Structures are given as structure tokens and as C-alpha cells.
């Protein structure tokens, strides 16, 4: 049986190539049909909002890559509720169907996966 891998994405989409490169790990894993989970934590939660304007920063839009997640078979999407609240985003609708997790649910999630990458 394949080992499960949880990828924790902690960077805002405008902070450099980090968020995109983290997502690339997820999509590559999906292409190999591996059991991959993706957790948006800390500034990583900013990736979950629609109406981003990356063109103003001469950057490519990450939204299209994020929307490709279900096509790559990545359906285990999670978001840290505390990180959203800290950034005043608790009430804003998310652009992806990510499950909101509180602190104890986060601990359970981490325990459930065989391997973890945090970026």
C-alpha cells in the first residue's frame, strides 16, 4: 500500500515561488495516484481566496493550478480555521472545498498521515 503524504502549505501566493512550488509537489503526487493531503496553514490560507490580482505584481495566477487539484485526484483539502481567524478571513467564502479544522482536528490530521512536508 502506498504511504500517505500530507503537504502543509504555509506561504502566501504573492510571497515568491514557494506556494507554487509547494502546490507542484501536490500535483505531481496526484499524477502518480498517491494518497496526498493538502493543508493550508498560516499565510498559506491566502491561497484559498478568489479574486486575486497577481497581474498587478507581474505574477502568474495560482488559482488555475489550485482548481486543477480535483482533476489530479486531490480531494483531501484542509484549512486551519485559526489561521483564517487570525487574518480576519473567518467569514470569507473559500474558492476551494477545503475542510476547516480546529487545533485538535489538526493534531488528528497530522497523526493520520505517514509522512509530512511543511513548506
Amino acid at each position, binding site marked *: 500500500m502506498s504511504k500517505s503524504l500530507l503537504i502543509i502549505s504555509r506561504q502566501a501566493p504573492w510571497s515568491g515561488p514557494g506556494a507554487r512550488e509547494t502546490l507542484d509537489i501536490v500535483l505531481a503526487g496526484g499524477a502518480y495516484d498517491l494518497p496526498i493531503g493538502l493543508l493550508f496553514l498560516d499565510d498559506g490560507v491566502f491561497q484559498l481566496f478568489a479574486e486575486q490580482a497577481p497581474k498587478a505584481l507581474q505574477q502568474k495566477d495560482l488559482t488555475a493550478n489550485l482548481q486543477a487539484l480535483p482533476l489530479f485526484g486531490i480531494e483531501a483539502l484542509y484549512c486551519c480555521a485559526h489561521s483564517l481567524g487570525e487574518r480576519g478571513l473567518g467569514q470569507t467564502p473559500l474558492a476551494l472545498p477545503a475542510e476547516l479544522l480546529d487545533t485538535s482536528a489538526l493534531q488528528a490530521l497530522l497523526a493520520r498521515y505517514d509522512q*509530512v512536508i511543511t513548506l
Partner: protein
Amino acid sequence: MKFAIALFAAPHQPAARRALRFAQAALADGHEIVRLFFYQDGVHSASSSVVSSQDELDLTAEWRTFVKAHNLDGVVCIAAALRRGVLDTDEATRYGRTAASIEAPWVLSGLGQLHEAVQEADRLICFGGP
């Protein structure tokens, strides 16, 4: 135990040194390293273009010596490396660049190599990152 080691930090960052010391200690204790995978700024830690002062640790040289001595599988992510100007001679030729800084024992390859290592290893140990 079988370890996969991922490095996300450039050679001047403490995590790059810690990764090397961990890898050395793992082998010294009789463990196996199934693969080293350098990603994000970690690609610079495989670069042969890094120049250190004579009285400073030359981490990229030490990594190279270590990987060669133990015949390890040292993989540098090609997409992350190209983005950061870290090329081997093939890629330098392909994109018309004058400098190549990835040479044996390092090889450029894709993210599939990271996933394969994750599957093979008992533990994935990551160094560096935000």
C-alpha cells in the same frame, strides 16, 4: 532505518548544514539513505559555483564529497533549479546559457523522484523551508 532527506535551504542557511550532519550521522549509525532530494532554495546547496572564504565551511563541496564517497542518489529538482539559474551542461546548452553548476554526483530530475523516495523510505526528513 531507510531515510529520505529533503533539503529546501540554500548552503548559507543553517538548515543546509544540519541536513548534511544528519545524513552523515544516519550513515555512521548504519542507517540507509534512499535518496537526497534538493528543492526550492536547496538547489543552491548542490551548486558547484558557490565560493566560500578559505576560513569558512565549504558546504557545497562537503555535500559533493559526501554524496560521492557513499555513492548516494543525489537529486536536484530540475524546475526549481532552472528557475534559480542552477543548470547542468545539458540544460545550459538547451537554454543557451554560459554557466553550468550542477555536475556529478548530482543529477537534475523531476518531483516524481521525491514521491518515489517518500514511498521507499521509512521516514522522510525535511530541512529548511519558510
